[in-house]
């Protein structure tokens, strides 16, 4: 078997990787439900790789399934698999690391662009949702929760804090809602409310048990319960997907939308889905932010090409392209001091043009994620004490 004979170790350096990778096909596994992201990989990354003699294959698969797959392979004692690069985050990274599924270290020797654009003491390079990264993954995108409000419905006065939001909701019942967890964005919104009501430190320090967390976030749950009767359908039901919520927002059924993409309002507006009425803002106390990461499974058969792919996706060229609206306008994961000026300019442009939040505001108002282990617990508590209360 040809695959089996291939080295299962990471290459020793980027230049060696480049050489070894020639002619290889690298598979990129990641969520395939964002057409802008897909387009970026297909239109930008793939041609760049082609020039290096590497073929990229994009497989749309949920990280949950990827993890299941990797686990199964490990259980079945399979030494090499088909997955070369995965898009991974937080809780899933925690699991993957715990199960020893990922190859490392992916240091700056292997990924030169890490050194160029990302400072090694950036907290997001050290920890991913509380899990120490240990050079097992590389950031390749920046995500931060932003609120998108209807200018008309809010009269330009956006609720930039939990209290303001409550007041507005009481005055305008039925006009707010949020996506129900376990949706990623919905879950982030709830964490953000926790930050608003009890603060990041409290939840960050809380023990990762149901009891411990409940004690800490009780005020947050109370807040959500107080808000509940003023939500859409009196909070008896919630939208299931962000898309559903987007549609309700677009139809002015609700006044407020959320996104994990800072530039989301811009892309939607250019798509004709949102009108000029959509305006982005963040809470005064800040919003949850995290990075998207790439990792290489231990079983990858094309580790050299995987390394090259990661470096390419992190490159200035690829990231600059990615700022285009048609590629989803994703903010690069570059560290503050190392971001090229051209990119900063572009982001500020967009903020003027599409009413998105300016880059420096965003980075100032960024609150880190809590431990991935706590997230399902919070979701459970929400279900128990908010959704199914009464």
């Amino acid at each position, binding site marked *: 078997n040809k695959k089996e004979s291939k080295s299962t170790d990471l290459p020793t350096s980027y230049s060696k990787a480049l050489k070894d990778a020639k002619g290889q096909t690298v598979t990129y*596994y990641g969520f395939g439900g964002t057409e802008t992201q897909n387009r970026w990989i297909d239109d930008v990354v793939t041609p760049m790789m082609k020039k290096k003699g590497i073929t990229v294959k994009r497989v749309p698969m949920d990280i949950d399934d990827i993890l299941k797959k990797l686990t199964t392979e490990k259980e079945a004692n399979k030494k090499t698999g088909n997955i070369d690069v995965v898009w991974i985050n937080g809780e899933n990274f925690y699991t993957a690391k715990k199960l020893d599924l990922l190859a490392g270290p992916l240091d700056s020797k292997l990924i030169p662009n890490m050194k160029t654009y990302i400072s090694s003491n950036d907290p997001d390079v050290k920890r991913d949702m509380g899990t120490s990264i240990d050079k097992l993954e590389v950031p390749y995108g920046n995500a931060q929760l932003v609120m998108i409000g209807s200018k008309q419905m809010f009269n330009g006065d956006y609720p930039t804090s939990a209290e303001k939001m409550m007041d507005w909701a009481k005055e305008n019942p039925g006009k707010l809602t949020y996506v129900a967890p376990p949706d990623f964005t919905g879950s982030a919104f709830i964490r953000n409310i926790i930050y608003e009501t009890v603060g990041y430190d409290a939840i960050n320090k809380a023990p990762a048990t149901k009891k411990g967390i409940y004690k800490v976030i009780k005020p947050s749950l109370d807040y959500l319960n107080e808000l509940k009767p003023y939500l859409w359908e009196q909070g008896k039901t919630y939208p299931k997907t962000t898309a559903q919520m987007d549609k309700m927002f677009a139809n002015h059924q609700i006044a407020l939308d959320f996104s994990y993409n800072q530039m989301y309002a811009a892309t939607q507006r250019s798509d004709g889905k949102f009108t000029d009425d959509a305006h982005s803002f963040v809470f005064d106390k800040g919003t949850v932010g995290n990075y998207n990461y790439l990792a290489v499974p231990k079983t990858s058969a094309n580790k050299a090409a995987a390394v090259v792919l990661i470096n390419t996706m992190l490159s200035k060229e690829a990231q600059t392209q990615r700022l285009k609206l048609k590629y989803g306008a994703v903010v690069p994961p570059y560290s503050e001091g190392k971001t090229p000026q051209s990119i900063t300019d572009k982001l500020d442009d967009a903020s003027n043009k599409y009413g998105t939040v300016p880059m420096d505001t965003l980075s100032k108002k960024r609150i880190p994620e809590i431990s991935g282990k706590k997230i399902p617990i919070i979701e459970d508590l929400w279900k128990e004490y908010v959704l199914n209360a009464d």
Partner: protein
Amino acid sequence: MKKSSRLFPFLLFVILVLMPLLVIVMLSVGRNWNYPQLLPRQISLSYFIELLFDNKELLDSLVTSIVLALGTIGLTVIIAYPTAIALGYYDFRGKKLLNILVYLPLIIPSTALLTNMDFVMIKFGLNGSYFGVISVHALFCLPYAIKLLVDNLSLINDRYEIVSRNMGASAIQTFFHITLPLSRSGLQGAVMMTYIVSMTQYLSTLLIGEGNYITLSVRMFPFTQDGKYQIAAIYGVIFMLFTLIPLYLIDFYISHSGRRVIR
């Protein structure tokens, strides 16, 4: 029965079936379609064109889907036919149990089962292979195929086969000259269901196919999952075209080759 008394239910049925299809088609080409407008403000084929022509992956995945579906049909029919013959014609010990067994793949929620299937496939060395993928597809098609064939065969009974064998026909000749034509409608149903079930397999294709088989469903599913309506609708329309056209062709071929089905 009078014609008029059936006209109303007929029209109602037609509307209920076709309206959603129409909505999907409009959704796939409409832009700026917001509440409470009844029709999209703009019609644009740009998405379509982009997906169909700028993106050869769509066509690739279409071909992959069909290639898998054809293999699945073959495998399913090979397994389902004899099983259905046994269930439809004969009484034997354990028949009732088997009757339930054939429905198992539907009954057991596939999400969790699939990882275990993946495990088994890896152990057999079939993961990522064509046969591996169509086997898993076939597993989910078998309940439908067997059911439709059994319904059909149990009404015919084996009396014509007996005649054929008595006249000196081999088992194979009997199958092709007697069983097959007599259960044609059941087979047609079975093929149709198999085709569609195979075409819509998502997770099994991905897990067992190891990314070697990126079908239409694999591409489409994430969008629908995430509620990306318009893209999902476009995929849906393409999907619809490529399920309906071949199936109607089969239907046309079957109902026009030879005589109407027996009484």
